[in-house]
């Protein structure tokens, strides 16, 4: 039997709506993808496109409207809330967030099958060329990957070197726009996507120059 995929986001929908009687959908995120091997995945997309919501769904701090998130074959929402951080961790800029939403009390949930987090999600880490800390951060991502974890790096690039970093370190990409995900196996095919080039605009040209 093959070992289960490291991260399987299975038909996850998250719908936010407004109004009690006349429901209007204000935001709708749909995600369905599988990452079987350890690696570093880059997530890009405009602000408000649903990147942070996606991360929250993966770590179990947000409840999907439908679908499930499996980390190493384990449904994260079936794991005791105080042990979910042993499966997936959400880094918010400079600290880690441990906040979980559950529909059932912990005693009805299962313990985590692992003791160390398998999936590390970095939510817009602050890359600043002035101080040189980027190098240590990138080394840290690589170290995690070499220890067989999955690193997901979410960036909203606004300077050419942000793209340079993504290109240097990420092995595959996910592009998020208006709640929809597009996958790309490498940087070049990511740039084939006209939505991506439109979103990045001058940054790509700037890098080429």
């Amino acid at each position, binding site marked *: 039997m093959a070992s289960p995929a490291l991260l399987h986001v299975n038909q996850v929908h998250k719908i936010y709506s407004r109004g009690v009687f006349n429901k209007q959908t204000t935001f709708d995120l749909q995600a369905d993808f599988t990452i079987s091997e350890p690696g570093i995945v880059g997530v890009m997309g405009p602000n408000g496109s649903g990147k942070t919501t996606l991360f929250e769904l993966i770590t179990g701090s947000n409840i999907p409207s439908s679908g499930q998130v499996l980390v190493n074959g384990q449904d994260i929402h079936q794991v005791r809330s105080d042990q979910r951080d042993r499966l997936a961790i959400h*880094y918010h800029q400079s600290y880690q967030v441990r906040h979980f939403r559950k529909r059932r009390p912990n005693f009805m949930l299962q313990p985590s099958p692992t003791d160390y987090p398998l999936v590390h999600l970095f939510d817009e880490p602050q890359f600043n060329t002035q101080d*040189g800390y980027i190098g240590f951060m990138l080394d*840290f991502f690589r170290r995690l990957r070499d220890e067989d974890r999955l690193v997901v790096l979410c960036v909203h690039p606004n300077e050419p070197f942000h793209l340079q970093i993504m290109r240097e370190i990420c092995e595959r990409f996910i592009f998020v726009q208006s709640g929809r995900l597009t996958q790309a196996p490498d940087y070049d095919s990511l740039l084939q996507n006209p939505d991506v080039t439109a979103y990045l605009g001058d940054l790509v040209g700037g890098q080429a120059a």
Partner: protein
Amino acid sequence: MALFEASHLHKRFADQVVLEDITLSFEENQISGIMGPNGAGKTTCFNVLTGRFKPDRGRVHFDGRDITGLPPRKIARRGIARSFQMMNLFDEYTALENIVLALPEVRDKGFRVLHDLSNDSGAQDRGAQVLARMGLGGREGALASDLPYGQRRALEIGIALAAEPRMLFLDEPTSGLGTDATAILAELIGEIRKSVSIVIIEHDMRFLFDLADHISVIHWGQVIAQGAPDQLRENEWVRASNLGALA
């Protein structure tokens, strides 16, 4: 065994994990550095190490003894002194009084109501010596609140040093200082390292790379890199940054 060892420290505030499994050790007679980007939890780490906050989990050992969760005054009495990033001087006191109050011999006389500090030439002289060492000779009588910024910083470190600690923790000593004042401070620290083990928290890499013997980089509540300055300087991004260009 290192003079100061912290193992598996955890600290969280509500949802935020500020320290996650931090393990650090600081050797005797060295300058150890803790660095990290702004807001990366360095000061929290510092506060846990020096007893201001109790860690949720993990132990802190100093000189082979467990000091986890001891109140600040007991940690101070074991021989650990610290400076503060937000300067915490006694503003109504003169520079000399600030120092004298920090002397352990004065601390032991705290309850002697008949003692006259101003006639205690021993304490006064030792206080003046510390001030002279800090480059504040001649400013004994100036009120702490009247000193210029750089001298307040020096006094801040002087207070910590006057406690005659075995280990001195400095919290962002360069913050707010200009280039010249930073150079003076570096010289000062180079001078006091002869008598005391030092731990410095900084986000200014260049300052630490020049001074420290060993550096730990903290981010996301974890130690993301550590080593001697030369090892860390190998990193191409570090070299490509301003620091690298200048180093």
